[in-house]
């Protein structure tokens, strides 16, 4: 019974595919995988836009959007995404006279398409990855880096200084943060011994013990998770790393010359990218669809996945409500002088953790934990000191003579 509930979507798909003639089955199988994913995360996108604004409002002691009515019925603003969608679709699509029209048109497509492709390798539940690629994690990061290209296409083709500055910032930021993002996943791949997302999730299961072995519950996993989250925030251009779009500085960055549906596509692409990277964080560090302990395994696996996913999204929104934007030099210093060294040290910690796992003597566990935790915390404190230049004081301004 529990198993059939857990596998209900998988069985449904098999049943649907079985209904069609044999020659069509590969095509139908693909469609049946794609359509629910797009529908589901499309809905997630709509829901996130409204809840993000609501949470941001409440965090700043405002009410947030609460106006939209449908046929005279109050909806407490819950229909805001529909109103926004209608607005976006009916707006004039302005293309600058001097713009490179083809590239300007292609940029939103190039951003959104790879973002959707990222979901194909994320296991949304037990046996619920659209494609179970052996090198799925590699695929994820390879496809994910296409968004840099799209952002630069948008900035370059707009023939606008703000767009160009924005896309330059985006390139600097995304390439810098790609490094810690990938480096922080390597320990996971080392310890799980595979590049397949499904097998990474399997490796974090409850197994014979009582509690699940989520990687985040180890010293190297926690460190990797934090680095991954920071880098993921930067990768998806979200506050406090929203320099490419910094409204108060460069209007809307690479989005300046976009309007109407193209703007909506960019908006969609960025959120989908965020969802994908949050899904990957869940897969790599938070045990994917695994329950945290044996007693809770009766809850279907996909619910576990989406629960963790929702927590991460809310956390991203919460961070956005809290932190101000970084300066460009602070942003790059954080990547190269803090996250990259931490991620590199984390490789060593993960290796040590692996080898110390075979120690047999008494108190081997506490020693293993102590050494690894120290190797994580000490560099963190040390690099944080270096990042601040050892002192925190008001900045002194020098003016040109």
């Amino acid at each position, binding site marked *: 019974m529990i198993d059939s509930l857990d596998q209900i979507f998988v069985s449904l798909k098999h049943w649907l595919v079985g209904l069609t003639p044999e020659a069509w089955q590969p095509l139908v199988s693909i469609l049946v995988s794609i359509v629910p994913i797009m529908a589901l995360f499309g809905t997630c996108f709509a829901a996130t836009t409204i809840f993000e604004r609501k949470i941001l409002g*409440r*965090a*700043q*002691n405002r*009410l947030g959007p609460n106006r939209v009515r449908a046929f005279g019925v109050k909806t407490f603003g819950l229909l805001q995404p529909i109103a926004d969608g209608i607005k976006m679709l009916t707006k004039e699509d302005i293309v600058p006279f001097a713009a490179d029209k083809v590239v300007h048109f292609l940029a939103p497509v190039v951003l959104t398409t790879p973002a959707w492709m990222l979901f194909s390798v994320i296991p949304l539940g037990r046996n619920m990855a659209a494609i179970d690629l052996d090198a799925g994690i590699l695929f994820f990061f390879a496809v994910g880096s296409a968004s840099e290209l799209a952002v630069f296409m948008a900035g370059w083709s707009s023939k606008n200084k703000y767009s160009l500055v924005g896309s330059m910032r985006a390139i600097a930021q995304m390439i810098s943060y790609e490094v810690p993002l990938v480096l922080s996943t390597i320990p996971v791949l080392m310890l799980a011994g595979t590049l397949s997302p499904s097998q990474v999730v399997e490796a974090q299961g409850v197994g014979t013990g009582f509690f699940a072995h989520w990687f985040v519950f180890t010293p190297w996993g926690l460190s990797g998770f934090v680095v991954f989250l920071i880098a993921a925030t930067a990768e998806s251009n979200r506050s406090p790393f929203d320099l490419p779009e910094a409204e108060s500085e460069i209007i809307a960055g690479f989005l300046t010359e976009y309007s109407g549906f193209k703007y909506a596509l960019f908006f969609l692409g960025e959120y989908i990218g965020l969802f994908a990277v949050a899904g990957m964080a869940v897969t790599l560090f938070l045990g994917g669809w695994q329950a945290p302990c044996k007693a809770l395994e009766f809850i279907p696996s996909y619910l576990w996945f989406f629960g963790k996913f929702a927590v991460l999204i809310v956390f991203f929104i*919460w961070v956005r409500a809290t*932190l101000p934007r970084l300066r460009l030099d602070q942003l790059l210093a954080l990547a190269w002088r803090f996250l990259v060294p931490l991620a590199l040290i984390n490789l060593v910690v993960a290796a040590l953790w692996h080898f110390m796992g075979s120690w047999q003597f008494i108190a081997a566990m506490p020693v293993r934990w102590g050494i690894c935790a120290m190797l994580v915390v000490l560099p963190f404190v040390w690099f944080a000191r270096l990042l601040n230049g050892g002192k925190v004081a008001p900045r002194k301004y020098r003016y040109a003579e």
Partner: protein
Amino acid sequence: MLGLGIIKGLVETGRNFVGSYFKPERLVTIQYPEKHLPPVEAARTIPFLVYDGKDSMKGLRCTACTICETECPPKCIYIVKDTVKKPDYLGKMQNQPKVFDIDISVCMGCGICVEVCPFESIKMDQVFELSGSDRFGAMLLHKAQLVKSNDYFGEICHEQATQINAARADDVRKAEAKAKADADAKAKAAAVAVSNAAAGVAAVAASSMTATPGTTQPDSKPAPKAASTSTPLPAPSKPTVPSATP
């Protein structure tokens, strides 16, 4: 340590998030079209023309002197003088505007027209819901749309209006006293042609203390009028001049 400040910030926003659901007084915004904030006396948007009494055209203070038209920096005031005159609050015949237009899409709300008007005729309004569906016609306000009663002015700028009203009442009183003195003087002059100089002293003493005996009546006439225009002027200029130097 790095991260402590971030956690503190997260706690703060988290507290706001939860608190705003349980304590409505935390909310700093109001639901605008349904609720309005109480008006602020120093607020100003576009100018309007003040009139006294009931009839907006008869009581209009504007004398079509066109000073405001000349001084307005973006030149958004347009005045055409009428050929017929009408009596002002002192009973003196004054010009009146036939056309008085302000293009509020051009007006920048600087309040200079208010500063320069010698007749307390133009004042800054506080209305702000001025949007219209017509970009040109609806934004060009004519005389009939610009006039508002002195009572309204008293409502939005109570202190200033009280001062001006007092000054104007004073003017009226002085003018009456003077008219009476003039009438007395004339009567006396007609009756006793010999004691001319003595009656002149009495008349001047009634109107202004500074006048020397021997001044004749036509010379002393502008004195109360000059006082009426110059005394209230500093009052409206006060709120707009920033008191930067202590």
